[in-house]
């Protein structure tokens, strides 16, 4: 157990160090995600309004569909982050190096997924701010709403990172990895998008209590994939 955490921390630290010196996620994935938000604005006209007699200003359709768009942008960005996470290992046989070092496979899984979580949390913070700004989202702020929103993002991102890392390892060593991983991951993440946008919907516009069951579902999903990764990474890394 100690070994596992030690190895996980080592891999996590290494991946974050790589990000710190290469700035790929910061300088490429984040702008990409923000650009997706802008494209949503082009695709769904910001002038489309929802008829709402109670509001002084009719809210735009764009602002009402923010929860879903937000996580779609995070989802697309996550494909890049996951690709990058295994891209650094695909060069120069470093995956073999990790195997030769005798690191605990489950530790490698946790470390790599953990680094993706950290990076995606950053991405989603920027994307959320961007969505509020670009889509003119007006909500009644409260601590309960903020807590629900942040918890949702945490659970959803853990699920995305765990599933993405697992499927990347499944396709490791394949030339067609870049297209195969999205094919494998996207249907798997459909329930995550569903749960995350429902919970965020509740956090932004609905009753906060409606969001928590979805967060529980997201957490269960994340736990399932973290568990699956821990159990299967040995088999995946052992025989290549």
């Amino acid at each position: 157990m100690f070994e596992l955490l030690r190895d996980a921390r080592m891999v996590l630290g290494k991946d974050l160090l790589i990000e710190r010196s290469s700035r790929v996620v910061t300088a490429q994935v984040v702008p990409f995600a923000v650009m997706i938000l802008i494209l949503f604005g082009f695709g769904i006209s910001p002038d489309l309004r929802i008829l709402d007699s109670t509001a002084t200003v009719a809210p735009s359709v764009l602002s009402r569909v923010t929860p879903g768009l937000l996580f779609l942008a995070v989802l697309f960005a996550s494909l890049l982050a996951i690709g990058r996470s295994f891209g650094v290992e695909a060069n120069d046989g470093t995956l073999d190096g990790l195997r030769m070092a005798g690191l605990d496979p489950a530790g490698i899984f946790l470390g790599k997924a953990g680094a993706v979580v950290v990076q995606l949390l950053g991405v989603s913070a920027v994307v959320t701010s961007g969505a509020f700004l670009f889509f003119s989202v007006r909500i009644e702020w409260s601590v309960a709403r903020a807590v629900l929103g942040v918890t949702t993002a945490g659970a959803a991102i853990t699920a995305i990172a765990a599933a993405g890392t697992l499927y990347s390892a499944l396709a490791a060593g394949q030339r067609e990895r870049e297209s195969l991983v999205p094919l494998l991951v996207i249907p798997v993440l459909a329930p995550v998008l569903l749960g995350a946008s429902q919970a965020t919907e509740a956090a932004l516009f609905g009753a906060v209590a409606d969001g928590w069951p979805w967060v529980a579902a997201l957490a269960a999903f994340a736990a399932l994939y973290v568990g699956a990764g821990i159990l299967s990474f040995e088999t995946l890394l052992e025989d290549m």
Partner: protein
Amino acid sequence: MTLDSRDPAPSAAGDLQDKELVQLQGVVCLMGGFPALAGLDLTVGSGEIVGLRGANGAGKTTVLRLCAGLVTLSRGSGSVLGHDLGTRAGRRSTRKAVGLLGHDTSLYDDLTVEQNVRFWARANRAAEPDVLAAMDHLGVAGRVATVKVAGLSAGQRRRTALAILVARRPRLWLLDEPHAGLDHDGRNLLDQLLMDAAAAGATIMVATHDVGRIDDILTRTVIVHGGTVHEHPIRPIGRPGGTDV
């Protein structure tokens, strides 16, 4: 001078003297369905310095990767340092115990030499002083250490990888074309390193096209061809028309 007449290198590891460190019997290894090794037999004793020679695609790299515990065998049996290559646990123990320098140098392009070496030293559970000494010895200390690996020359990459390998203190060294990319100085350094390791009791398997000082320390040469091994009898290495092209 003939190679098979040489005495085994003097070894400090007396208890391992007679043990067979590497034992491969009828090994078949598939690489994407292709039998890279096709029923190969090879035995390497403790303290030996075995040169693997053979044409491109003969299977030398696969032999080394197999002995490193990186690939599975489809048929036959094998053991390295007493670990069974046929089992997952055996391959895992093998990987921890041996040192491999392959075509790839296993370095992260985005990290500096120092960051790479520090990470791999920790991952390999090597002692920090050992690593620093090795870096110094191989000329990748000082200013070079602060350069990102992406900016290194092929030779400098290889020196860095060697420093990491040396600090692992493996009992079995597996080297795949270790001279590639090294300058004259680097080659001498490497040969000296191998001689020192051998003197300290390490066993070495080295695939090389290089003809030169390394021949003086080889205790045996085997020819790999068509995924099998041919123990080469009396044949001076480096004679024109040799199998090594």
